[in-house]
């Protein structure tokens, strides 16, 4: 590691403490809302293929 990088790391301050996964704001497991959110996440971002088709497996 270069001296600059080492100095950068030596000055780092991490705020707060880690939390356990069961404290996450978003649930750990998939729910129906998770499915909807994931489809929107995919379709509303950059990309050409929309999985939020109006007719699933038509």
């Amino acid at each position, binding site marked *: 590691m270069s001296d600059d990088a080492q100095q950068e790391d030596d000055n780092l301050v*991490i705020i*707060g403490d880690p939390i356990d996964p069961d404290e996450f704001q978003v649930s750990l497991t998939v729910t129906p809302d998770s499915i909807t959110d994931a489809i929107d996440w995919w379709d509303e*971002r950059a990309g050409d293929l929309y999985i939020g*088709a*109006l007719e699933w497996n038509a």
Partner: protein
Amino acid sequence: MSFDEVSLGFQITWNEEQHGWQLVSTGATIATPAIHAEIRSHAVLSGNLFNDITTSLYAAETPVAAWQNAMWAEIKEGRTANAIFGAGGVGNMSPEAIARLNARLAEEAGHLANFAQDIADGKVSVLKARDRARQYAQGMESSYWDEWKQPLTGPELDHLPILPTTPGNGDTPCHGNCQCTLLFTDAGIIWKLNPASHCTGCISLAAGGPYRGS
């Protein structure tokens, strides 16, 4: 989502017989390279997000708990979307598929917890943290392949070994940072080495096929 919004992209539908996606408008099959490009385009965006929030964490702009929450929200959405994509749509997200996805998410949550603790303990430099964070994005495509390969089994494939891992899973020397894809042929699943430098793990997987999915 309105019709007008959807018209900016391409609506796709799953063809069970061909085990692949096709355009709703023309019925044309979407080739694996296009599927892979789509997965990778989302992974790049996730990777950029992970890079940025990790930089913010190390700049003392974001508490580590907020960093964890932001990482987790993106990881969960990315893996869920990839699983839906690989399964062939929401209609194919069976209870078994949901269980597989939940198991994978539990693993990722554990890895993220370890990562956060390593950061809090001062064990990870900012450069390594950004690189390690980006790997969560690279790994998301494994959820696509996890579901894609599941139905590729049956008596005609029983003589084949089960595919031991998937592209993006991270358990090859390239840590999933490769351009490999899977193809389904009459002979079974092929591990395809697309143009790139390949690690010994992926080369071995390509030579070890064909495989069955489950």
